[in-house]
């Protein structure tokens, strides 16, 4: 294959990564932005989404699209419910103290990981894609399902943007993010908003995982990479900025796809992590964020 088509293939793969990353990172960014909680267990909610997708598609059987659609609806709901319970039982009692919640979410990470290992097992298991249509480009055929991931992610991102900017729920969330004490004084049930945001963040991660699982398999340790990448996206994109999150996700996903196709993936990771750490050191508000108060 010539350089041009090779680059196109790398770019397409990068876009798929970006699409999934944008959804996962949006969840992390919402929780981080509204609640000031660094959710270290975010990657495990992602993993849980994938594992549940496998369980649901296996339980339903029949045409793959049927199981997949069921998983797309049910898995995020279950993950959201688990997150809500965790928020009520643990984070709320810690009064959202930043350091205590970090330790607590590390605890959640270990608990979820161990439960997945115990009940799901150490194997990586595949989920059949809902359809297997190949789009024929002049140089190579490309999976139609992968393109549909990009489309689905774009739709969800647009929907989130509409909810955040045009609805009352979005207004309440932004008010809580801006100044939770004043919001409380104006009768906004801040505790319930926090619960909802934490569950929503986990659900976004689960949706991303269900979308990716037909092309990457479900495994109990699969949450680690998306967690670190999401941190990177949230930091580069700037806290609580949806536009920044999307731009950063595309940036990171594309460069990851292209660099790891032409260079060693480990070297690519080292350079990317180091660059991001430097961004955080020298420009803590991120590339698109405004200075924090």
């Amino acid at each position, binding site marked *: 294959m010539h350089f041009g088509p090779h680059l196109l293939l790398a770019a397409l793969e990068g876009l798929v990564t970006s699409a999934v990353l944008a959804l996962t990172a949006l969840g992390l960014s919402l929780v981080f932005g509204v609640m000031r909680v660094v959710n270290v267990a975010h990657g495990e909610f992602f993993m849980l989404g994938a594992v549940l997708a496998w369980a649901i598609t296996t339980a339903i059987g029949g045409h793959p699209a049927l199981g997949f659609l069921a998983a797309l609806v049910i898995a995020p709901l279950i993950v959201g419910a688990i997150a809500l319970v965790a928020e009520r039982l643990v984070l709320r009692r810690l009064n959202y103290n930043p350091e205590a919640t970090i330790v607590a979410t590390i*605890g959640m990470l270990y608990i979820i990981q161990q439960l997945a290992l115990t009940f799901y097992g150490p194997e990586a298991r595949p989920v059949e894609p809902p359809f297997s249509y190949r789009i024929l480009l002049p140089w190579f055929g490309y999976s139609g399902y992968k393109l549909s991931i990009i489309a689905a992610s774009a739709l969800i991102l647009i929907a989130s943007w509409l909810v955040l900017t045009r609805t009352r729920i979005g207004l309440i969330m932004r008010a809580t993010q801006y100044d939770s004490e004043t919001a409380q004084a104006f009768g906004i049930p801040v505790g319930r908003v926090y619960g909802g945001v934490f569950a929503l963040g986990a659900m976004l991660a689960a949706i991303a995982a269900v979308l990716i699982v037909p092309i990457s398999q479900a495994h109990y340790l699969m949450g680690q990479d998306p967690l670190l990448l999401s941190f990177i996206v949230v930091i580069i994109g700037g806290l609580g900025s949806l536009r920044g999150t999307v731009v950063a996700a595309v940036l990171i996903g594309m460069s990851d796809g292209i660099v790891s196709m032409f260079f060693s993936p480990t070297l690519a990771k080292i350079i990317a992590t180091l660059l991001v750490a430097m961004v955080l050191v020298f420009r803590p508000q991120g590339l698109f964020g405004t200075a924090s108060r």
Partner: protein
Amino acid sequence: MSEASPAKAYALHLGVIALLFVLSFLLPDYYHGLLARIMVLAVFAMGYNMLFGYVGLLSLGHAMFFGAGLYGAGLAVIQLGWGVPLAFVSGIACGAVLALMIGLLALRTTGVAFMIVTMMFAQVFSLLILYFASWTGGDQGMVVPQPARVLSFGATVLDLTNPTVRYMSALALFSIVLLITLAIVRSRYGRVLVAIRENEERTKMLGYDTFSNKLIAVVISGTICAASGAAYALLFGYVGSSFASVQYSILPLLWVLLGGAATTLGPLIGTVFMYYVIDITSGYTSAYLLIVGIALILLVLFFPKGILGSIRQRWLGWLP
């Protein structure tokens, strides 16, 4: 920390060291080996406590300082053929230099950003170990051969693979670090660190240069952790990349929280306790991560001061 006589505090710490010395002759083989390992890891926890407990900086990257000591000493022995004392010094030096570099960069951030930045630097460190697999052995790690772990001073030969020598070396390192920590936290400098933890702005207004004080604390903390790593490589003979993974940044946090942050003996108590809990439960279940997870959550929820922190609060106000 009330103003009790320093003699009382030093007596307690010397008593603990004496107890560990006596235990060496009483313990059965299995626990003898386990306690040697625990003492080395407790040094790691003490290094972590220096920064987390006394300065209030939550780092999630201390595995890289442990790893710097581990590989600094291990590579010196295996690849360069250096002797044990020189390798130990090389491990400590690697940790100190790395801590200085990381401190200069990471201390520009505060709070959550500090935690994420340290985690990322640690990630880079562990990826570098994997990238340079031809020297570091990648994720297989390296075994330090037995002949390389023998010390000889003229006629005296100390074989670090001998259990008694190993236990006494671990105890010596532990005692030195414990007494150094005690001296630091009781000193003027230690008080400044606590003042920074309680209110950095006010400490700044009182005329202290908080940045350089914190930087010194990072270097001390990193150096102690590296000493623990270097000792681990030389005493137990294994240098592996898993010791530089995120998990080994989280474990000292757990040990310190359990024993009591900002107490000198807390890291030892936390490490001993957690090791025995895991040791006992692993007889019943393999789900040791579950125990760690539940312990972390229960600790922050109901027991944020840890074992020794609670004892100090209730009964013994003079504990350092």
